[in-house]
């Protein structure tokens, strides 16, 4: 399974580099409606219209990408977690990302549905396909995957230029930050998903890639869980120089949690920094914002001003 996914990523990337032609246009003229055949992130064969007119997105990050690449006006439905950009809130809802309603999706008569390998139920994908509705599955687990996913979603949605532009913008932001932090000392960073309980990002996560690109060193070692739970002792033993927190529903002021540990370097030096969760953990175009925010938090002497400086 894992090998399959990686292989398909590789194939996709190779194909994408070749003149940007990932699609194989099927037998010209033989079919009335032109259709494209894609290989999605799970290695599945997906046959979809060349320029789908009614798209349903079951993935909040894909909803964001579709708006960014210029296909937002063709979105027919989204999940109730698709809250960005604000225009997404006004679209018909088909349920949550993990439990969307088959009927609500079918009722919107989409000609393409976007799902994600880690949240869309496989049984739902099978039933949609049995009903003749193509489902394209994405699976971005790293910064590099995200850039490629943006590019691919642009192709599949029929706006390859938009996909390329947004993907390149993210890639450029990554390269600019990387070169700006080249040779600087790398502070130890703890990236917290939530604080009650303390859940942190380990290597192999999107957040980890961002903090490495921003010139930091993740204090969480690789382990069994991608997002392990930490006790207070692990926190004190690691003693990171910078702690990144995001508000979450159980704790709107996550900085408060660390005040009880004045032994921590990050607390005494005032380097517990807040960054909006969606900028770090949602694999879409806003990762660039998260990256700049991290770079400013880790290397304030270099990134004094706003983006791009």
């Amino acid at each position, binding site marked *: 399974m894992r090998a399959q996914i990686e292989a398909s990523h590789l194939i996709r990337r190779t194909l994408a580099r070749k003149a940007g032609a990932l699609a194989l246009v099927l037998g010209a003229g033989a079919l009335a409606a032109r259709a494209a055949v894609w290989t999605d992130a799970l290695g599945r064969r997906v046959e979809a219209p060349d320029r789908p007119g009614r798209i349903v997105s079951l993935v909040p990050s894909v909803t964001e990408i579709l708006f960014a690449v210029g296909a937002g006006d063709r979105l027919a439905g989204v999940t109730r977690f698709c809250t960005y950009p604000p225009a997404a809130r006004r679209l018909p809802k088909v349920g949550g990302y993990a439990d969307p309603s088959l009927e609500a999706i079918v009722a919107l008569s989409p000609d393409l549905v976007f799902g994600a390998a880690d949240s869309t139920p496989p049984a739902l994908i099978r039933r949609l396909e049995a009903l003749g509705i193509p489902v394209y599955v994405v699976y971005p687990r790293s910064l590099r995957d995200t850039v490629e996913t943006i590019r691919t979603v642009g192709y599949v949605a029929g706006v390859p230029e938009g996909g390329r532009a947004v993907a390149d913008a993210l890639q450029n932001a990554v390269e600019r930050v990387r070169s700006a932090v080249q040779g600087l000392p790398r502070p130890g960073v703890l990236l917290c998903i939530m604080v009650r309980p*303390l859940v942190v990002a380990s290597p192999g996560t999107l957040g980890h890639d961002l903090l490495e690109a921003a010139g930091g060193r993740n204090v969480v070692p690789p382990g*069994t869980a991608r997002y*392990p739970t930490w*006790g*207070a002792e692990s926190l004190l033993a690691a003693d990171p120089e910078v702690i990144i927190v995001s508000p979450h*529903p159980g704790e709107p002021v996550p900085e408060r949690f660390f005040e009880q540990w004045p032994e921590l370097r990050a607390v005494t030096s005032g380097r517990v920094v807040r960054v909006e969760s969606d900028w770090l953990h949602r694999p879409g175009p806003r990762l660039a914002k998260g990256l700049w925010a991290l770079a400013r938090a880790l290397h304030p002497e270099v990134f004094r001003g706003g983006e791009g400086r």
Partner: protein
Amino acid sequence: MRVPGPPRARVLWPALVLGLGGAFAFSMWAGALRLPWSEVLWILAGGPAASPTHGAIVMRVRLPRALLAALVGASLGSAGGAFQALLRNPLADPYILGVSGGAALGAVAALSLGATSALAVPAAAFAGAVASMGFVYVVARAHRGSPHTLILAGVMVGSFCSALLLFLLWAAPADPARAAVFWLAGDLSGADPGWLPAAAAWASVAFAGLWAQSAALDLLTQGEDVAADLGLDVGRARLLLLACGGGLVAASVALAGLVGFVGLVVPHAVRALWGPAHRRLLPASAALGAAFLLVADGVSRTVLAPAEVPVGVITALVGAPFFLYLLRQREGRP
């Protein structure tokens, strides 16, 4: 005339004291940071630590956590022993009278309503546990009904709460739901060390009340009719036992969520090793429960360090095979 206890009764107290001491020592030593024994002892004895971090780890992380694990383990062990006798059911655990469902519902409701005060979730869990037990007591007419009615009423109230709980988890945004799942698997990391003295006082009073009813528990294991014939006021004894046992369970749930298995298996182990007399069984279950949870928590903090495994996973993984072994030993005896 003294009734002689089972053959192993003489080694009971030394064994328990040793076990509890060893478990406490293990818990103080176990952790993500390798600290030498000598340093832990030195800091515990009040000596200045090599670094403020080491001092904080021993005195403000490990010590409160070990005391919490001991308190919760003792509460669950003794309450489980009392409930098994009171309900005359070997499968009874401290959560059987609707407590698990009620407490979880209270906690998750507080979480999904956006409660942010540190005291909100424990308070809501405590209220949920007490409310569900009170409800079970009233609908089962516990002062005169049979133990089976109590158990069935408890299971029904628990199921009803679970249904509401599933709905809340489904409707809640992902983060509170994730916090709730941790809480449901037992979480010794959340409690504020400042609550420990009050919780310990509360648990001591409840345990004393339970222990004072040891004779009543011995009689109740013979059946309500026999107990009544022998002069026991069954209704009054039940009310006292449920109030004291319930108080222990509700407090431990508020402190640590739903830590499974301790309250079920520890009293059985004590019964198998040292016999069924409750004057001995209740304090022995408390001591063994404390030792068991101390060890399980120590393992949960070290096995995948620096990550922490939910302690309920460890209690069941370690406890179930040990219990099966005890069962076989007992069946094998003539």
